[in-house]
């Protein structure tokens, strides 16, 4: 028998660590999804630069959608901070061993890349802005004048997208005190999950958001640019199918990575085996197996495979499930990870 009694009862720390609530899973989810959208946009921009697909809808407007979601994610992160008035301190230094530090600098580069990418088709997305601020049009013209520039922007999107996606996993991975996060697979897992969520989000937006010519005014144009973030033309059916096909691949890889993560932790030290046990027998088990694995991965793969085989009608249900599953993955891992700890010898 081992009985431990402690006089400590610090808020957010005892009896179990719970310093991070809903804000961090939301931030990690949006961050991963934006990372995936940048990779998808970069890939489509490469095609655009080659002249293969001049009307590629998700190459020109996806960054604008990413920019909107980025602000939502950063807003959630800001809400989590308890010493908000000192947030500027992040940009006074670069701490090489802190993923949060270099991640903060990567986020600045991501903002810049998303804005530059959004300007590529600013005349279509927000005509009023392009007319009122000719500089935006000049940047747009400069970017699209040569295929090399567009290709550079494409690779910048892909590189920063991969860095951002992996960063969201490494952020947790480096905290040695939480055995559930002590797996190098978290980075790739969050990246692939982000790619999957991005494909689902773009797919969902294509089906749900209206595609029509942008209003001309300042306010209406701004709203339209944010709402019609995928442009004024309805996408080709083949584009939608390519997203579904990509999503099936991402989800399959995600499933393999989840299995490897569980196996790796279960066969590691006693602390890691106990930590992974939280996903099998604790209040986190049902959300993990029910929402993350079953509804978030297995069901969408099955439905999308049936859709691609023309066995069932094409719906937005799999995309919605993938998004819910992507958020559930972050929610479960952030919360169960905080509950995991090293055990006394």
């Amino acid at each position, binding site marked *: 028998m081992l*009985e*431990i009694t402690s*006089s400590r009862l610090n808020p957010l720390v005892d009896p179990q660590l719970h*310093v991070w609530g809903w804000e961090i899973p939301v931030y990690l989810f949006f961050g991963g999804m934006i990372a995936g959208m940048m990779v998808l946009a970069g890939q489509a921009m490469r095609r655009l630069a080659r002249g293969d697909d001049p009307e590629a809808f998700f190459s020109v407007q996806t960054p604008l959608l990413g920019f909107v979601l980025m602000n939502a994610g950063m807003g959630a992160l800001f809400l989590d*901070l308890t010493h*908000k008035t000192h947030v500027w301190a992040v940009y006074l230094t670069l701490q090489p061993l802190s993923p949060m530090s270099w991640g903060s600098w990567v986020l600045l580069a991501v903002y810049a890349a998303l804005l530059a990418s959004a300007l590529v088709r600013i005349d279509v997305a927000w005509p009023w802005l392009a007319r009122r601020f000719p500089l935006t049009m000049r940047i747009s013209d400069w970017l699209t004048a040569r295929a090399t520039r567009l290709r550079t922007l494409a690779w910048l999107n892909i590189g920063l997208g991969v860095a951002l996606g992996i960063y969201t996993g490494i952020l947790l991975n*480096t905290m040695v*005190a939480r055995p559930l996060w002590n797996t190098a697979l978290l980075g790739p897992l969050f990246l692939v999950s982000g790619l999957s969520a991005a494909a689902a989000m773009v797919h969902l937006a294509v089906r749900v958001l209206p595609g029509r010519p942008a209003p001309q005014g300042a306010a209406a144009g701004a709203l339209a640019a944010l709402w019609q973030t995928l442009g004024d033309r309805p996408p080709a059916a083949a584009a939608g199918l390519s997203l579904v096909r990509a999503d099936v691949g991402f989800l399959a890889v995600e499933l393999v990575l989840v299995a490897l993560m569980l196996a790796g932790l279960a066969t590691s030290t006693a602390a890691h085996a106990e930590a992974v046990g939280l996903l099998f027998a604790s209040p986190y088990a049902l959300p993990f197996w029910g929402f993350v694995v079953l509804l978030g991965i297995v069901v969408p793969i099955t439905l999308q495979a049936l859709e691609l085989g023309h066995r069932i009608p094409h719906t937005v249900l799999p995309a919605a499930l993938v998004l819910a599953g992507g958020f559930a993955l972050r929610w479960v891992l952030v919360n169960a990870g905080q509950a995991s700890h090293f055990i006394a010898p």
Partner: protein
Amino acid sequence: MARLGMVIDTRKCIGCMDCVVACQVENDVPRGYCRDWIVSEVRGEFPHLAMEIRSERCNHCDDPPCVDCCPTGASHVEPLGKTVQVNPDRCIGCKACVAACPYGARYVHPKGYVDKCSFCLHRVKAGKQPACVSVCPTSCMSFGDLDDPKSAVAKLLATRKWHTLLPGAGTKPRVFYLE
């Protein structure tokens, strides 16, 4: 350069919590929070029981994960005594250090920044012992330079059997418990 550490004799500690109260008064720790605390650990089956009472706090680790993960440098290793300190003016309250500490030694101060035991560095600079050490009625706590073979802490570690908390976490703690 000194490498400050603490040695606590668990055979002498009676869990009176004088150290806890002294710390709260000295460092103006807000009500409901603590920088140090008492842990009682009972092992075995009745009547064959063994009990250890410990006064616990930040371990001022040689390899501190809280410092590594801090995005602003607010958590840092102070040159004086190589102790781990927090600069409230640099802390943004991201709480990464709280999650990274395997000992639960940190907390979020009601003012928003993260706080923890400082080994009473302000007292050490004035040539005094930390508040908890100075008030201990059983003198179970010793404080000093671990690298100085003539210091009381170094002599105790050289002559007595000791352990640290959660050695498996790999942080190399500098608070030692004599058995």
